[in-house]
């Protein structure tokens, strides 16, 4: 019969229309600013810099190695290295970025900076409501704007942050053990050297200086 297919299609539409009043599955949209669907746990928007402790400037994990700057596909990161050094989380003296800018109007949220960072210093944020009427300055983030605490990182990506913390703690204990061993070895060596020097002194006084 001509028109049978159309009637069949219309019945399908009617079923969906009526179904939307009884079945929550058929209602897929929400009234956005008032209602929100929570973002997925590993959703990514723009990168931020992680810092430990209370002070953002002292606690920045970034050591200005510039790997992310080189690997960034659209080249939206700009880093200037410091002249002096400050201790990092294991206490080793490292340089730090005096400037770390990300132009988020250029950034394409690809997460490659996060993947290549060997220091767990840069992570992806989930904050997406960043619209501004200032097209240039407003979208150029400096390191103060980018710095977010480790607690914040834990609050947006709990599983990933716990993993990162465990890895960093492991690195720290390893570094401490290594430093301790090195110190012990150095002490032992110094003692041996002193003993050797004391033994050698009577015969050849000049040898002690070597």
């Amino acid at each position: 019969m001509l028109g049978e297919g159309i009637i069949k299609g219309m019945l399908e539409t009617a079923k969906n229309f009526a179904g939307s009043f009884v079945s929550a599955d058929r209602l897929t949209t929400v009234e956005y600013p008032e209602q929100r669907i929570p973002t997925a746990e590993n959703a990514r928007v723009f990168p931020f810099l992680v810092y430990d402790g209370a002070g953002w400037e002292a606690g920045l994990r970034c050591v200005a190695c510039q790997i992310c700057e080189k690997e960034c596909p659209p080249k939206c990161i700009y880093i200037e290295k410091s002249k002096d050094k400050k201790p990092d989380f294991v206490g080793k003296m490292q340089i730090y970025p005096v400037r770390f800018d990300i132009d988020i109007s250029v950034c394409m949220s690809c997460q490659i900076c996060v993947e290549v960072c060997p220091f767990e210093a840069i992570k992806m944020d989930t904050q997406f409501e960043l619209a501004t009427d200032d097209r240039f300055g407003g979208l150029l983030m400096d390191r103060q704007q980018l710095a977010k605490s480790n607690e914040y990182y834990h609050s947006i990506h709990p599983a990933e942050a716990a993993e990162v913390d465990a890895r960093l703690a492991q690195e720290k204990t390893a570094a401490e053990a290594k430093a301790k061993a090195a110190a012990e070895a150095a002490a032992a060596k110094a003692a041996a050297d002193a003993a050797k020097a004391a033994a050698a002194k009577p015969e050849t006084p000049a040898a002690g200086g070597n």
Partner: protein
Amino acid sequence: MSLLDTKPEHIEGWNRPPVIEPDGEGELLEVAMGPHHPSTHGVFRMDVALDGERVVRLKPVFGYLHRNHEKIAEGTTYLASMPYTDRLDYFCSLSNNWAYALAVEKLVGQEVPERAQYIRVILAELTRIQNHASTIGFLLQEMGASGTPLMYAFREREKILDLFESLTGSRMMCNYMRFGGCRVDVSGPWLAATRKVVAGLPAFVDEFEALLSSNEILMARCQGVGVLKPALAVNASISGPMLRASGVNYDIRKVDHYGIYDRFKFRVPLGDHGDIYDRYMVRVLEMRESIGILNQALKEIPGGPIMDPKAKLRGFRPKAGEAYGRIEAPKGELGFYLISDGSPNPYRYRVRPPSLINLTVLEDMCLGQNVADVVLIFGSVDIVLGEVDR
């Protein structure tokens, strides 16, 4: 003639005699459809010469969305091109990732672990389903079925995109695959959610078919319109659902044995007439086959690592040589051709985009048809301008 002078009469070939003879009454009417025509899926222009309602000439004009992808890729490392491939065909970023990863893996000689292969198949088939669903939705939207089919398609696409987001972190620009594996492992809850979505897909396809497949208006508009003969399709190197709708049995999943597609049982749907209705039907049937592949893959997925332990993320220099990786993307054969000269950047990086090459027969399909059908024929080709212009 200056390059800036783009008046049609100065372009080579524009003044050739019409392929179809006008009936001799009155003049031809030249219409520029696009680049801001709602049916052009982006920015694409068709310069159409009309004799009354009939199309006697059609010239596609594209390049409005050119972003220099290939040249940018030659200036950056292999890894840095991966997120750019998402932006070729932005409906199917995961298939694009796979094609590029395949080319680099061939170049470097990396093995992909079992689990990663399964993850890739699952993601590629989910991509195919959502691409075909939205393509059909857009096609019907252009036919005048405004809203309903497209909304149904997008409701289903939404579920698949949510899966992508929870796995890769992004809904469309996934940037998920890496050379030698995948970036993050799938979790148990994710697989459970995927099984749930896949279990709901057959009902969706049934509903979609009940809505439209036997609709008389759809049949009247689609059957016998925009016919593409198999000989022309093969000679113009058309690929994907368009080629199969013309009756040519050529599916790269079957002929090239890439990934682990050998292990899955699926059929390749073929059309008979090569018209718009066949292209529509081939896509519907492909969705059903994809659901079958997904069910098998989700059942068999093994444990284990997801990255080749030898794979390096950055700083690798492939030996001098060349490689071509190709996959059956939802739109056709997507290939990446790479030449390495031993440096960290590719010496040559070439994309074989299915959208562009499927578009080359547009004029042959449109000649002699009504101008209203041009929009339909164009929609049935299934292109994304990001891939056409690159």
